[in-house]
């Protein structure tokens, strides 16, 4: 095919938007004399049907093979005109636009100058369009399955939604049970309904759903591939218990020599468990797990004469020979629902969390007020005979939130309301107790929040404005040093119990997920969404979505809503079955590539790899672009010293003529 450029230039008046300032006739006349230009026309609205028809007719009648449209921003109408070209049977990427509206007629009042600039922009577009190459938009199939990382309420909800839509879900949870943070909570604000009551049924559903494959006590080890075609490797850690045999009777835990001697993670260290354990009574799956770091037999190779759990297990489920297993599968979409960590209160040493037993965190109090908690639901200071019931109780909000000194500038969004809830519960459990809340601001922004805050205050909880600075002991009381900022009174408040309203933090192991999925973090270190407003569940990695507190602090309703959003985004992908990949992507001239790997390091998407090729008998390594992964930023091309990596439609040899025209034309 004779591909000698035959260019049509179309100058748009845009009503008077362009024509009022730019002399479109002069520009058209000028364009008609540029090399390789066969036709140059102007029209009142190029984007209108008649305007597009003009282009299509010329392509057919004049045999045009390149088109320049001088009109508005390509961000506005590039797709429109690409379609026009395609409809006329021309490759849509044979189009170049000259933005003579947003960046010319609208910003320069003076006609002569605007016209001069429009000419230049058209000339630059002509110089580039001659060198454009046809591009193919590729599509790939989507694997109709989803990986969900994290089995908290966000992961559970997303899994159920996708599974109910008829697609396969792989739900991977690091700990022995699904349920996440929500399972540790007693009541939920502002309705005060029981957390376990609403969560447990969903946990059970997840475990029994035919479309959901549940991996607990497992970790995602490797994710490769790209949107629609991710390959996943999951490590199922050895539980040393045959889950098929285990009946969850618990005899093993009772017999374990370490029974009641290991701090329970679920009870935030306030309760104790055995080395073989069920994290909490409603755990799903209700199967026991041996803590390999603690179990005497596993750590020392010896547990008395023989491990007592083995003797106790009637089902013969205990198997010390068990090894980690690797599961591999393919998915089309991934949802990250890895949740959060609570702020470590010992990072604010001025509050004496490490020193005083009666300085506790809100999560600890959550376990204390829970009927399934270590004290059976009574709020006590200390344990055993020394335990006492506090009368003077203070809550401190914003511990680890809105605080640059610990690197967390953000508001954790849940503390105001859980503090109100806990204050209410304490007041309920200890009638006559004096409860006060020290606060900077009360943010009761959600549905029913302000009403709840109002209720709690009216119940007699005192809200004192001032963020405490220091806690120390005087006699058997804790002294809170604080200023009441409403009255400008520095004061020392003596109390029995201090509850630190700890904030939410990104998980300490977030880095693993970032490396796994090439996610970014926002300034607050939570995972970065693709757009804060319009793409809040998407990420910069296509096919990877966010749900819940992994993206930022959230309460349960917001978490569930976002989980449903992430599920629906994944479903859009899965149900369409095909995904289009970028056309203006990078490619490598393997003949000149020197194999230095700069581009491999530069590519934010891991889309380039070094491969070994045979070059005239020699094994040499050269870069190669994975077309499905490349997003077409071109950073590799600018970093390639030998000019071997180029970006389609933005090749050096296509840009340099533009520079020549714009730089040289006076």
């Amino acid at each position: 095919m004779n591909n000698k450029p035959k260019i049509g230039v179309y100058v748009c008046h845009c009503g008077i938007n362009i024509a009022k300032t730019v002399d479109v006739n002069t520009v058209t006349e000028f364009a008609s004399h540029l090399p390789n230009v066969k036709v140059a026309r102007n029209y009142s609205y190029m984007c209108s049907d008649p305007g597009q028809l003009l282009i299509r007719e010329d392509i057919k009648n004049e045999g045009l093979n390149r088109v320049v449209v001088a009109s508005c921003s390509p961000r506005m109408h590039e797709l429109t005109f690409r379609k026009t070209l395609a409809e006329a049977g021309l490759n849509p990427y044979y189009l170049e636009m000259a933005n003579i509206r947003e960046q010319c007629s609208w910003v320069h009042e003076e006609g002569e100058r605007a016209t001069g600039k429009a000419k230049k922009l058209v000339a630059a577009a002509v110089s580039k369009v001659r060198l454009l190459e046809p591009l193919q938009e590729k599509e790939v199939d989507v694997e109709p399955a989803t990986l969900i990382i994290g089995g908290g309420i966000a992961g559970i909800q997303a899994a159920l939604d996708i599974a109910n839509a008829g697609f396969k879900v792989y739900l991977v949870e690091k700990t022995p049970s699904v349920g996440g943070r929500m399972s540790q909570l007693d009541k939920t604000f502002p309705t005060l309904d029981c957390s376990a009551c609403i969560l447990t049924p969903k946990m059970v559903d997840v475990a029994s759903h035919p479309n959901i494959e549940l991996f607990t006590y497992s970790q995602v080890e490797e994710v490769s591939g790209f949107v629609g075609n991710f390959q996943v490797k999951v490590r199922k850690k050895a539980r040393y218990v045959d889950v098929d045999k285990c009946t969850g009777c618990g005899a093993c835990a009772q017999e374990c020599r370490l029974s009641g001697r290991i701090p329970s993670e679920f009870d935030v260290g306030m309760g104790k468990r055995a080395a073989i354990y069920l994290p909490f009574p409603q755990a799903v799956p209700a199967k026991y797990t041996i803590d390999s770091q603690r179990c005497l037999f596993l750590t020392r190779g010896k547990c008395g004469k023989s491990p007592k759990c083995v003797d106790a297990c009637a089902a013969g489920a205990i198997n010390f020979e068990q090894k980690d297993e690797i599961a591999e599968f393919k998915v089309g979409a991934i949802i990250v629902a890895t949740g959060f960590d609570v702020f470590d209160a010992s990072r604010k040493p001025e509050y004496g969390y490490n020193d005083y037993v009666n300085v506790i965190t809100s999560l600890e109090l959550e376990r204390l007020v829970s009927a399934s908690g270590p004290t059976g639901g009574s709020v006590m200071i200390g344990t055993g005979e020394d335990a006492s019931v506090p009368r003077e109780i203070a809550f401190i909000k914003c511990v680890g939130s809105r605080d640059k000194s610990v690197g967390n500038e953000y508001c954790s969004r849940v503390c105001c309301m859980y503090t109100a809830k806990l204050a209410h519960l304490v007041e309920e459990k200890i009638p006559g107790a004096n409860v006060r809340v020290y606060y900077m601001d009360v943010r009761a922004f959600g549905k029913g929040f302000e009403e709840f805050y109002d209720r709690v205050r009216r119940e007699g909880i005192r809200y004192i404005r001032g963020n405490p600075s220091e806690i120390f002991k005087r006699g058997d009381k804790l002294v809170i040093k604080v200023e009441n900022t409403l009255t400008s009174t520095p004061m020392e408040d003596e109390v029995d119990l201090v509850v630190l309203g700890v904030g939410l933090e990104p998980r300490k192991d977030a880095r693993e997920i970032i490396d796994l999925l090439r996610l970014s973090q926002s300034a607050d270190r939570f995972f970065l969404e693709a757009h804060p407003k319009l793409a809040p569940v998407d990420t910069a990695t296509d096919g990877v979505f966010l749900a819940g507190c992994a993206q930022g602090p959230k309460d349960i309703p917001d978490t569930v809503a976002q989980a449903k959003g992430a599920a629906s985004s994944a479903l859009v992908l899965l149900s369409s079955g095909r995904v289009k990949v970028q056309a203006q992507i990078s490619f490598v001239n393997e003949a000149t590539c020197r194999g230095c790997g700069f581009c491999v390091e530069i590519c934010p998407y891991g889309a380039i790899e070094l491969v070994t090729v045979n070059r005239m008998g020699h094994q040499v390594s050269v870069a190669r672009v994975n077309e499905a992964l490349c997003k077409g930023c071109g950073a590799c091309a600018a970093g390639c010293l030998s000019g071997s990596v180029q970006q389609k439609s933005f090749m050096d040899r296509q840009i340099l003529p533009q520079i020549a025209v714009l730089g040289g034309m006076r």
Partner: protein
Amino acid sequence: MNTEMQGFIQKYDLLGCIQCGRCTGGCPVTVRTNLNVRRFVYDAIDQSMLDNLAKLPEIWDCTACNTCAVRCPKGLKPVEVLIGLRNILVESGVIQPTVRDALESVFREGNPWDKPRAIRSDWMQGLEVKIAEPGKKVENLIFVCCTIAYDPKVQVIAKNLVKVLNKAGVDYGFIGDSETCCSSEVHNLGEEGLFEMMVEDNTELLNSYDAARIVTISPHCYSTYKSQYPNLKAKVIHYTHLLKEILEENKLEITREFPQKIVFHDPCFLGKQNNVFDEPRYILGRIPGAELVEFERKRERSLCCEGGGGKMWVESESRKERLAETRVNNARELGATLLAVACPFCILTLDDALKAKGFEEEMRVAEILEIIGELV
């Protein structure tokens, strides 16, 4: 209004304040004076108020312990606002004569104690002291501190350091008579111009030595060199760092039994401001026979002795007992026989409090170097 005042909001980021009150809540002197540092941050936003604010006597109550800045969730430094207000006063010349004398003395003699430069090294008499030479390599360049150099009550600290260094065989050198005030207190008293000049001079002086580290004796010098001298070539450490190092490497042996109950008081400029908590405790822990006890308000929560912030030269009124007295009381309640510190100002204030309380029989206040020097 001068341009300096115009810049107050920007300079101290006053608009960043969210009025949480942590600064005032943490301020140790609120229990005995009217100082409410948050109010100053709040009020200083109104530029026209500055001159009036500067006239309030409370601005001289601040001990520059820095708790307000350490605690601020927004990274502000309320203490500097007070110093800025002091600066307005200093610029207008309305200051207490004692303050003026101290500043003039720094300008003329390089120390705030109105002592001649020429006798700065007199404490060395009779000691085998190595003096560092500009341009020559020295591992540890020792910076003495004006108070220790001139005040006979605390000169023993420096003397004992010489003893320790000589015994341990460490490569060190003192500066000698050319040593001049780090000007920590000049800054805290609000004399910005003099402070800047002293920073330049001292930087030049200290950089003229080919030293790997500058070892300060006073936490005030330590903190100032570390955070307010951006162009020092050598690393700045406190002597407790060095002493810990010496003990760890077993270059020094403490052989004598010392059957005392010791409580350590964290100096603000060492602890709160620079997170040096473990080194002094390590050193004390190496003393045979000694028992270490801790204050309730220790480490990050330590109580200020009120020695800093220019308080050595400022008289201000107060309601209650001095914090140093509170501290001494607490030590006594713990049954301590020795109140150990690592700062010359703390020594002076706590010793005064001890005497005022009449506890000299039961307890003693001593610098760590004083004790170690006695024991080796």
